[in-house]
């Protein structure tokens, strides 16, 4: 079959149109390759060198990793991240969804309440950390206040308890970030096709089950965004720890980001710092990539 392949005057403009999507993302792609992966590579290289005070390029193999693995502080930090990240993401999601759904019920003064939920996000982590440090401090904050008010037996000393201090970080971080999750879900809820909700009403679903089984599943992309954002915050909550506990008591509340920063810049052990950054990325890779894959593999709509 001889199809006359006069693939019409492919003017440069046409070609441009076809390439436009790619052109548009090209700058981002470039930036990602350099600003993310180039730097990751650089960090990877450093982790195999004896860099200490400043970068140096003397190869020492896996020595820095060996040091890291021997370091008790690193393991404490890693374990903390698991606990902190898990609780923080979980609680923020639950609160975010719950309050967003409640806010969605044609609430009076919705705007006002929404702003209250959101405002913690407006404050920098440093301020949040300081404020919560006071509030949770056994000698100063809630603990003291309740005792001053006559509840003698009250004791809330998690902040100075090496085994519980991590939950204090969770409280502060949830306080700060959950408002944004609420906003995210609210934006999602507002976009849900009302006719589907109607169909569910007719099907006899109560309001809770409409949300649970119809609306929330369709907000899957929003969950995805929220999880990404929250894990990003969890992994990087450096300012918060710095301001609230500085890793203490001892180093019971240390987190990998803090560890990495300390070793790279404060302690002049850049090699170990880089190795810890790579380990962090490795762990994220192990957890996140399957999730990313399952989220992105699917078709356009679910």
């Amino acid at each position: 079959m001889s199809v006359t392949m006069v693939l019409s005057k492919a003017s440069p403009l046409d070609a441009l149109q076809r390439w436009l999507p790619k052109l548009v993302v090209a700058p981002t792609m470039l930036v990602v390759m350099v600003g993310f992966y180039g730097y990751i590579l650089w960090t990877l290289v450093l982790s195999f060198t004896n860099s200490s005070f400043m970068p140096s390029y003397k190869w020492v193999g896996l020595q820095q990793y060996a040091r890291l693995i021997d370091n008790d502080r690193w393991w404490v930090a890693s374990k903390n991240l698991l606990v902190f990240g898990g609780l923080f993401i979980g609680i923020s999601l639950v609160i975010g969804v719950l309050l967003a759904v409640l806010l969605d019920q044609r609430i009076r003064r919705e705007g006002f309440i929404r702003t209250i939920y959101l405002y913690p996000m407006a404050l920098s982590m440093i301020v949040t950390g300081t404020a919560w440090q006071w509030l949770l401090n056994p000698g100063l904050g809630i603990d003291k206040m309740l005792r001053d008010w006559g509840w003698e037996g009250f004791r809330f000393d998690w902040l100075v308890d090496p085994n519980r201090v991590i939950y204090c970080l969770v409280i502060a971080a949830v306080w700060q970030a959950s408002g944004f999750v609420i906003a995210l879900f609210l934006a999602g809820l507002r976009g849900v096709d009302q006719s589907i909700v109607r169909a569910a009403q007719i099907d006899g679903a109560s309001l809770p089950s409409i949300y649970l089984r119809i609306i929330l599943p369709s907000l899957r992309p929003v969950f995805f965004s929220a999880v990404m954002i929250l894990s990003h915050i969890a992994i990087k909550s450096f300012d918060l720890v710095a301001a609230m506990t500085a890793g203490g008591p001892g180093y019971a509340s240390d987190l990998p980001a803090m560890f990495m920063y300390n070793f790279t810049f404060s302690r002049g052990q850049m090699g170990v710092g880089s190795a810890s950054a790579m380990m962090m990325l490795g762990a994220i890779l192990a957890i996140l990539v399957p999730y990313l894959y399952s989220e992105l593999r699917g078709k356009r709509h679910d």
Partner: protein
Amino acid sequence: ADSKGTVEVVHWWTSGGEAAAVKVLRDLVDKDGFTWKDSAVAGGAGSAAMTVLKTRVVSGNPPGAAQIKGPDLQEWGALDLLSSLDEVAEANDWNKLLSKTVINTMQYDGHYVAVPVNIHRVNWLWINPEVFKKAGIDKAPTTLDELYAAGDKLKAAGFVPLAHGGQPWQDSTVFEGLVLGIMGPEGYHKAFVEHDEATLTSPQMTEVFTALKKLSSYMDDNRAGRDWNLATAEVINGKAGMQIMGDWAKSEWTAAGKVAGTDYQCVPMPGTAGSYTYNIDSIAMFKLKNEGDIAAQHALARIALEPEFQYVFNQNKGSIPVRSDLDMSKFDSCAQASMNDFKEADQNGTLEPSMAHSMATNLAVQGAIFDVVTNFMSEKNADPSKGGAQIYAAIKSAQ
């Protein structure tokens, strides 16, 4: 008016008194026709500033001057980034004005690369005499046993015996005081400067850790993360009896309107009388190309040692001047005592660099020691006999 040159200064002197002192320096530099560009970076006892400094250097854009101290100067010097101040030193006779210990710290490879601005003494014990009186203690403790006795009495009287903030550097400040007291200046030197294994794992070290544990029983349980100045405030307010802290604590007392000698007492950390752990702040100069800027650097170096600045700065900081020729009568009794002890210790060879304040070791080793000490203090049932070995292992892995 055209400036003869600019010097950008990266530093972390940002608190009220410090900022005022820096302003004096800045005004003096400006008066000489140079421009001072201020890059103050507070946070993490200078670690934020260090981060800034490193990135600035990497981007090929270092500042003219930066607050750098102790062994760090050697590291920067080794990178061939610091410019020599020998010219200024010679013109102003630094070799005469400064003590040998200070000079050694300021030089890299035999050349001046930094100008010192003050000397802090770290091994002080601060006492609220009123509280002592209430608890029935008549004299300041001079030995550890006296300290324990005082502590017990204070505790019985319902006071917090020893005010303290649970931060690694504060923990280590107490720790190094105990090392100095129990093991003496030589032991201290062997442990923190030479990292001698035998010393670090000796039974004396176990004694130190036992004492540390004992001392921590005199501190309140809520101390974790508390800033040192809040701890000082407890002493000032009469909630606590004593605090082990460097002489910068004086600024809090001063701010509260208290007078040294009458409202509060400063004594050497029990067991360390005659020894002196120092913490010297200094400004290092980076290599620059522009002639005018270099002139500005030199002007800064010169002015920093001039009496006018030394007086204001040290009175605000609670420290003593680095030059030995100044009239100390303008200072309070604690500063005067500090100056005397400094000179004495300098002669006796009992002058030791503070480990907790980055004068003794590089940051990696310091961090390793901090980790062990601070963890020991927060861990209720840590074993004192293992502490020394842990420190040694930590130092080894950090080197």
